[in-house]
């Protein structure tokens, strides 16, 4: 670990932060290219493995950068990579949220709130569809998803309880 690596981490992830329009996963190919081919922080297979691990961990999906930073420069690298990936985009979101708050009476805000709602519902359903494909669902997993959907939609049972039971069912190897 040296200062040069830390600077590479800082520059790479803060620029990817700004470039990641549409979500963190949109810059994965570029991240892969730089980390594996340019900087040789890790191998192709390691990149694929830590991507899978980072997707299965709780929290934001972008935490693959924490693992990349760790491999490149230890715990300090991990923390730096995580902060670099969040701050530039975060500043932009902060500015937008300020404008949003100050525009309470604006017709633009009213139009966005009303008009984006059906689009968001469509995107949320699309992400559920993509998630079930990524998790490689078979009929048993779809059945579990179906049962859980009915429970979530029609009862007030704490979702965490249901997710935990589903995790247990998976642990037993039933899905």
């Amino acid at each position, binding site marked *: 670990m040296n200062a040069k690596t830390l600077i590479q981490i800082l520059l790479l992830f803060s620029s990817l*932060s*700004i*470039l990641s329009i*549409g*979500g963190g996963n949109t810059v994965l190919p570029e991240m892969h290219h730089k980390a594996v081919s340019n900087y040789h922080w890790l191998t192709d297979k390691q990149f694929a*493995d*830590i991507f899978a*691990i980072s997707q299965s*961990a*709780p*929290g*934001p*999906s*972008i935490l693959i950068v*924490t693992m990349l930073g*760790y491999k490149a420069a230890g715990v300090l690298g991990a923390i730096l990579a*995580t902060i670099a990936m*969040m701050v*530039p*985009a*975060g500043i*932009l*979101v902060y500015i937008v*949220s300020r404008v*949003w708050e100050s525009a309470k009476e604006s*017709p633009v805000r*009213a*139009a966005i709130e*009303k*008009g984006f*709602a*059906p*689009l*968001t*519902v*469509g*995107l*949320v*359903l699309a*992400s*559920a*569809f*993509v*998630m079930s494909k990524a*998790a490689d669902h078979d009929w048993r*997993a*779809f059945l*579990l*998803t179906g*049962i859980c959907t009915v*429970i*979530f*939609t029609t009862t007030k049972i704490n*979702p965490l309880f*249901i*997710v935990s039971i*589903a*995790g247990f069912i*998976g642990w*037993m190897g039933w899905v």
Partner: protein
Amino acid sequence: MTPNSSTSEAPTPSLVELALTFNHIALASFGGGLSAWSREIVVVQKNWMRDEEFLSAVTMCRILPGANQVNLAVFVGSKFRGIPGAVAATFGLTLVPVILVLILAWFYFQYNEVPALQGILKGAAAAAVALTISMAIKTGQKCLRGVVPVILFALIFYANGIHHWPLLGCLAVLAPIALIWGWPKEKKS
């Protein structure tokens, strides 16, 4: 458009509460479904935002660069407490997951294998998909009233979910239509 109906929101949360709430959201989402968990807690349990405001924030956070869920934490945090609120919410969302990921990274690079959590995660992921679907059902019941919103909903689901057309391309076409449809009508007095 009923005036003053949006003032029934909960009192402003403290920085600690913001951090703890987003930590709760992050940990609850161990099988995925972070958007659905955010709505479950921010809108349903805490009553910090109305559904309309939350949904539009979700899509704005998707359009803007950055991880969607981090962006949402920044958005909600700064709505209540400005920059310190944004930092507290982001910190709450990421601290424990970062520690967990570091432990996993250490384990992986030490032993060159992925910890055997796959079974648990497979089950939890099935439930997380369900939570996401039920979020679409619950929010859809409120806003998918009429022909235009249903068409907008169906088109973007088809384009982005089934055809995997890029989000920005889909929105470039559909967002203007959505905004024209959503533009407040002049009140006829």
